[in-house]
């Protein structure tokens, strides 16, 4: 082993330019791998974050419309016990109705939250553009579009009318901007008590909302939640079921990224094995003389396996550095109007380590062919062809 390694090392150091070129070849493969990987996962993360980052990913509802969930506090405890992957659990009451003031009447969806929990899902505090979140009953926060449409100002009083149920008046204490017109126009936010009182439902809620650690595991988790709750009056929904198109888009992206990475690796493997095959030819004289001196076939092939391994490691290290450098440049120079990167990169060190590992493995596997060739090389051919 040591003998083969030291010969391999010497072969590589004696042809520094060639060694560097091969290592660079591998490095470019690895850097593309690292960069594309970071870019795609950054893209996906930001897309997912934008779409479902600030919304409920798993939602427990009453099975029949119009029904509410009783003993929700107990159910929250049960749900929290299902898995540590469920990070946030938050109850909510929903009620549609009309928001009315002296000049206009707008259809809205009133959403009652326990803000200490719901804020973790929706990040209301970051989306407030004016005022504050509701602290006491009958305080409300409106979306900026609705706020403007109705030409309101803070501390104005508006009426919330729910047909067949009644009317209550709200004080506007804040304005939010979700960057989504649909929400900005319709959602009005208040606390749980306000809506529970209005609807006379006691301590019941419309739904229990959740966010999970791995958004793509939402479907499985939803199933687990459903079986754990074991309540036929409840249904469990998840974002994946609701956003099939987004998901297939993301999957398509993942697959194309995987394809790119596979092709990059294939070209790296082909490149290395062909270059190493040439080095066997270049070194055939040396292998021949080593064999005449009695080196074993196994050691002769180990020389090239080690060459592959060393080149792989060298290429992987360089490649990771290039890839990170490229990513850094991308985030520094490809920036949008707001000063943020066009696509935020997602640097996953596990993924980088994997890419490096694959490159090393690929280089070693690529050297199997030349290693076999070296093992089979007969001294007599070398001497006769001198």
């Amino acid at each position, binding site marked *: 082993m040591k003998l083969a390694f030291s010969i391999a090392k010497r072969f590589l150091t004696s042809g520094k330019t060639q060694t560097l070129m091969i290592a660079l070849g591998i490095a470019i493969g690895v850097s593309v791998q690292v960069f594309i990987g970071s870019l795609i996962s950054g893209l996906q993360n930001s897309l997912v974050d934008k779409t479902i980052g600030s919304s409920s990913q798993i939602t427990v509802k009453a099975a029949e419309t119009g029904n509410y969930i009783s003993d929700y506090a107990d159910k929250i405890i049960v749900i929290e016990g299902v898995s540590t992957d469920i990070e946030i659990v938050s109850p909510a009451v929903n009620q549609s109705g009309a928001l009315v003031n002296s000049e206009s009447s707008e259809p809205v969806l009133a959403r009652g939250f326990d803000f200490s929990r719901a804020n973790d899902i929706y990040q209301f505090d970051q989306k407030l553009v004016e005022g504050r979140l509701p602290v006491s009953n009958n305080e409300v926060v409106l979306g900026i579009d609705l706020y403007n449409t109705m030409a309101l100002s803070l501390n104005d009083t508006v009426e919330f009318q729910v047909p067949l149920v009644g009317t209550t008046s709200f004080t506007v204490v804040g304005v939010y901007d979700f960057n989504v017109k649909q929400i900005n126009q319709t959602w009005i936010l208040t606390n749980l008590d306000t809506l529970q009182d209005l609807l006379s439902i006691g301590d019941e809620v419309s739904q229990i909302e959740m966010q999970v650690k791995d958004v793509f595991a939402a479907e499985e988790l939803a199933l687990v939640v459903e079986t754990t709750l074991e309540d036929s009056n409840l249904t469990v929904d998840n974002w994946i079921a609701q956003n099939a198109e987004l998901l297939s888009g993301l999957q398509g992206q993942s697959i194309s990224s995987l394809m790119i990475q596979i092709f990059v690796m294939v070209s790296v493997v082909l490149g290395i094995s062909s270059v190493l095959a040439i080095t066997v030819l270049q070194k055939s004289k040396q292998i021949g*003389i*080593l064999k005449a*001196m*009695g080196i074993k076939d196994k*050691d002769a092939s180990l020389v090239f396996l080690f060459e592959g391994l060393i080149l792989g490691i060298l290429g992987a290290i360089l490649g990771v550095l290039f890839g990170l450098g490229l990513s850094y440049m991308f985030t520094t120079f490809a920036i949008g109007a707001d000063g943020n990167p066009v696509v935020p990169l997602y640097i996953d060190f596990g993924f980088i380590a994997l890419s490096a590992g694959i490159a090393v493995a690929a280089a070693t596997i690529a050297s199997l062919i030349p290693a076999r060739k070296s093992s089979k090389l007969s001294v007599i051919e070398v*001497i006769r062809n*001198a």
Partner: protein
Amino acid sequence: MPKILELKKINKIYGENTKVPTQVLFDIDLSFEESSFNSIIGQSGSGKSTLLNILGTLDKPSNGSVLINQIETSKMKKNQLSNLRNETIGFIFQFHYLLPEFTALENVLMPYQISKRPITKEVLARANELLDLVGLEKVKNNLSINMSGGQQQRTAIARSLMNQPKIILADEPTGNLDSDTTEQIYELLREINKKYKTTFIIITHDRHIAEKADRIIEIKDGRINLDITK
């Protein structure tokens, strides 16, 4: 004198399974005594190099047997042959075949490293001593590509001696050297022959080397044409 090398009824046919097989050696019977100094002469294409390669187990005869130290080699496995070569035979080739990536000293040490024994102070001292013997004390740390032809050939000689082999096989060891260097190399080989009792079998077309050998064997058309001992 015990026989250190013996060839019995050696035939060598190239392309045996083709339509035009060429036989290069015919029923060669030959044996060499321990610590003798032998030369093999013959025209190019006579089969003398093939004969030497078969003697050194680098090539296999089509039939017949090769005995090294009275041990039959034809049934030995590849690894056993490698060990046998490493321990018993030193090779010197015309184009010296040094490893250009290594220094003279490292080249000399290589046969020892191949045997995978640890390089002790004594071993290093021996390699240095051999380089002194061939007169290369000043260039021993030079890369072999940075040495002259004569220096490279001396390095190859020192290397062939590293594992104290009983036999040295040399194929035109002075083939591309000038006559003065040839004379020096020859004197060196003779000195080693006397000092270490090493058996030498040298292919040469240089009559000055051949006529000084203890025995001259001429190969002609794959047969022994002449075999005389001083």
